């Protein structure tokens, strides 16, 4: 791993609701190196999206970052004022969202949206900005960019819109792109194209990528490293092939087992029993204990710490699948 672009240390984002404090992100730490593609995996409600937004300082009220540190290229982001965060957003860190139908403003033409972004960060003429916008569209594989620039979002298909969103994210060749399930709403052929495009763009510009998803298949094809999140904590991390082939945490194993292609035809699909626990009522024990086939009294009373297993691997479990890792 080369020098870290993003360093998140013990990040805590809590939501102060009437029903109590929800620890959506509770002590998350990770680093992303230059040009590295990292997958952040977890179920709905595991805190992966909140982690993404926290990095940009955009955790919505009643959510608030209550502790930890986030540095981008060495500069601290936590505690910065809105005005001081703004130059970072879009320029150093860009974000791509899940639903491309919703992330472009329906009443503004593509050129207006792109030029406005460029002019928000750089003092350039409208012509120069338009030229940049056109180049950016060309780079993400949009044919006849001039025609497309003058179009409204409703004239684009889902895949095209996501390309536009990627083009906007890549305008400044940021150090990091946070992609929040950007291919979930697309069909598989378009999904493959977009993944390929992202891989190529990141390799060309040295942009690091934090890919937030619940889809292990996407991560398997794209990422260098994987972080598995559960109930606001990272429960397992490591190089993507290692983690997928030899998961240490029972939760990771369950996730992999839940991928339909892993199951035998005709048999009921494997699933992780139970639901993601309510973040309001996490006990003292391991958050996964109630759903875990390996849980015992220790798991229910004491939360496991993140323990290192080898140079790049770590897992937060009292009873990791070390035996399985050794056997296969």
């Amino acid at each position, binding site marked *: 791993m080369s020098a870290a672009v993003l360093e998140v240390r013990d990040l805590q984002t809590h939501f102060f609701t009437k029903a109590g404090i929800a620890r959506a992100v509770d002590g998350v730490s990770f680093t992303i190196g230059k040009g590295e593609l990292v997958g952040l995996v977890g179920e709905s409600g595991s805190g992966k999206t909140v982690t993404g937004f926290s990095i*940009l300082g*955009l955790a919505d*009220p009643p959510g608030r970052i209550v502790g930890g540190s986030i540095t981008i290229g060495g500069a601290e982001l936590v505690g910065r004022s809105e005005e001081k*965060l*703004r*130059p*970072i*957003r*879009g*320029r150093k860190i*860009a*974000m791509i*969202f*899940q*639903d491309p139908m*919703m*992330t*472009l*403003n*329906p*009443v*503004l033409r593509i050129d207006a949206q792109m030029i*406005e*972004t460029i002019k*928000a*960060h750089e003092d350039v003429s409208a012509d120069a900005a338009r030229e940049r916008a056109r180049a950016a569209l060309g780079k993400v*594989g*949009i*044919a*006849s960019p001039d*025609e497309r620039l*003058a*179009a*409204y979002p409703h*004239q*684009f*298909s889902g*895949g*095209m819109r996501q*390309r536009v*969103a990627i083009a*906007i994210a890549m305008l400044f060749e940021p150090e990091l792109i946070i992609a929040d399930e950007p291919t979930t709403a697309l069909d598989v*052929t378009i999904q*493959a*194209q977009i*993944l*390929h*495009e992202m891989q190529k763009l990141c390799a060309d510009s040295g942009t690091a990528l934090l890919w937030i998803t619940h889809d*292990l*298949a*996407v991560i*398997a*094809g*794209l990422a260098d490293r994987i972080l598995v999140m559960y109930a606001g904590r990272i429960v397992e991390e490591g190089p993507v*092939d290692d983690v*997928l082939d030899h998961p240490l945490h029972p939760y990771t194993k369950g996730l992999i087992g839940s*991928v339909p*292609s892993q199951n035998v035809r005709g048999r009921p699909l494997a699933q992780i029993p139970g639901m993601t626990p309510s973040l309001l009522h996490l006990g003292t024990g391991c958050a996964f204990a109630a759903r875990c086939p390996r849980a015992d009294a220790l798991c229910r009373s004491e939360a496991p710490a993140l323990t290192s297993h080898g140079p790049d691997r770590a897992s937060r479990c009292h009873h990791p699948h070390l035996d399985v890792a050794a056997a296969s």
Partner: protein
Amino acid sequence: MKATLDEAAPDTATVESTLPSDGPFRRFWSDFFESRIATLGLVAIILIVIAAFSAPLIAPQDPYDLAQVSVLDARLPPGEVSMDGYTFWLGTDGAGRDLWSAILYGLRISLSVGVMSGFIALLVGMVVGLTAAYAGGRTDALIMRVVDLQLSFPAVLVALMLLAILGKGIDKIIIALIVAQWAYYARTVRGSALVERSKDYVEAAACLGLSHSRIVFRHILPNCLPPLIVVGTVQTAHAIALEATLSFLGVGLPQTEPSLGLLIANGFDYMLSGRYWIAVFPGVALLVTIVSINLVGDQLRDVLNPRLQR
């Protein structure tokens, strides 16, 4: 698992076809003209506006120029010819003014008061409503309680109370109408801005490092315009009617600047003596104006309502 995604990723998206480039505006107008009655209303409004604002050019008489008005011509029925051979097609009023000319001049005042107060109230309500929706929390609660308080009084009452304090005059009535109406706009804008605010494109704009004012006015506002336009049209008609009511009651405009309401009030005294035209013709002019604006407003609501999208 890994193999599935690495293969088959063509470079460009040339497969996706080019769609016909119809802007939202062209579609809007073609939808709008589907209704004949609304088209008629729009044509009527345009004619009324042209007639009202070119009143000095097309009106046969300047009803404010006492040299042109003769008391000897007072209360002539429609079609009567004056002393100097001029035909009063709509008759004359108690002061001998040509009603047709008086209506044109009256329309000019009614329309400008209605449109101006409507427009300023729209701007005020829009800024207040957007602020409430975007700021949220206590600011929102405070602003909306003021709006609720205001809306719990009838608009006529609010305007009457204000005019009682301010006195007569065209500027006073515009102020009174703005105060009576801004809350409607504020509530409408806040409602749609709250919906827009929670949409992803607002979040995306924030992620791109755009400033608050830019997000509010360039991204949220245009998406709130459809309901605002509808309310604006209907409220303008309402403002014209309200102004006519106030003038009719004698608290609105001074006698020297007769609006339609004042003309109706003047003619009202003659109703029982059979001189119907003095009140009825200005009344018809007011009715046609308001109905036309409402017809256009109704059609706008149908066209701009996403739930009724055909």
